[in-house]
């Protein structure tokens, strides 16, 4: 009986720990604070911004409140770049998860 209670208790503790840990660890999302969608520039403008970087676009998508571009640069490196949807500024760039560029002062 005591063993069963102990089992149930450890299960509950493990579950609670996971529930607490999950949101605390899920901090990888880039936040652009870009406001309502009607003010956003078009995806075509985003593609132009990526083209101006001389990148070959693999995929564009909306990630949270940011524009996200997967692209290949001239050296064949695969990049994951976040652009501000209103200003189309390049905010942060990852290469396979490692940060390779961040706009000065950007903390989102």
């Amino acid at each position: 009986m005591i063993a069963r209670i102990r089992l149930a208790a450890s299960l509950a503790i493990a579950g609670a720990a996971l529930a607490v840990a999950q949101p605390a660890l899920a901090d990888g999302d880039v936040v652009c604070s870009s406001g309502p969608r009607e003010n956003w520039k078009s995806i075509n403008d985003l593609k132009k911004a990526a083209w101006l970087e001389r990148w070959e676009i693999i995929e564009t998508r909306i990630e949270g409140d940011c524009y996200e571009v997967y692209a290949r640069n001239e050296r064949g490196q695969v990049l994951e770049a976040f652009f501000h949807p209103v200003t189309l500024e390049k905010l942060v760039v990852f290469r396979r998860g490692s940060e390779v560029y961040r706009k000065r002062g950007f903390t989102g």
Partner: protein
Amino acid sequence: MIRKLRPLVWLLLALPALAMVYQLASGATFAFKLLHPTGELALRLMVVALMVGPLITIFGRNRFLLGWLALRRNIGVAAFIYGLMHLVFYVMDMGAIGPIIDEFWLPGIWSGWLSFALMLVAASISADWAVKALGPWWQRLQYAVYGAVLIGALHWYWLDNNAGPALVHLAPLFVLWTLRAVVKRTRRARKKAKEKESLA
């Protein structure tokens, strides 16, 4: 029973792969987009294969768990095939050896190679004759899958900068491993108590 079930299980395991290859061939998708689903499936299937061991320790042998156990090697091989597809799509997407070597030492990349290498160890000895030939070493070599799962989850975390999805996938294993440890300890304690009783 399992003999009859096995082809059905394999069909089920192959369905996502068939859908992916069909979409790729018809131009509905491209290699880059298939990286995520193949990697996720490889990890999920490894987790499913590893779950049955602790479940049997905790709940004892029943028909359902024994059936699951009998299919475990099949599930593991399917996980490896999705891992292999993941690698093939990666190479297809990169298109050349130069950029692949160039990014090898990035944490998000070497972790993927390492996880795949560990899966390869386990999968390469999955034939019946290998099980027989290796004896106790077979089980020891299969522990490579533990490494493949943990490093595979790390690979996901490093690529995504987000621990959430990888942790959710590992959660069932962490819960079961904890439970198994607790159950084993209580059983040991009970056995000791009984021995003491019989001595007294």
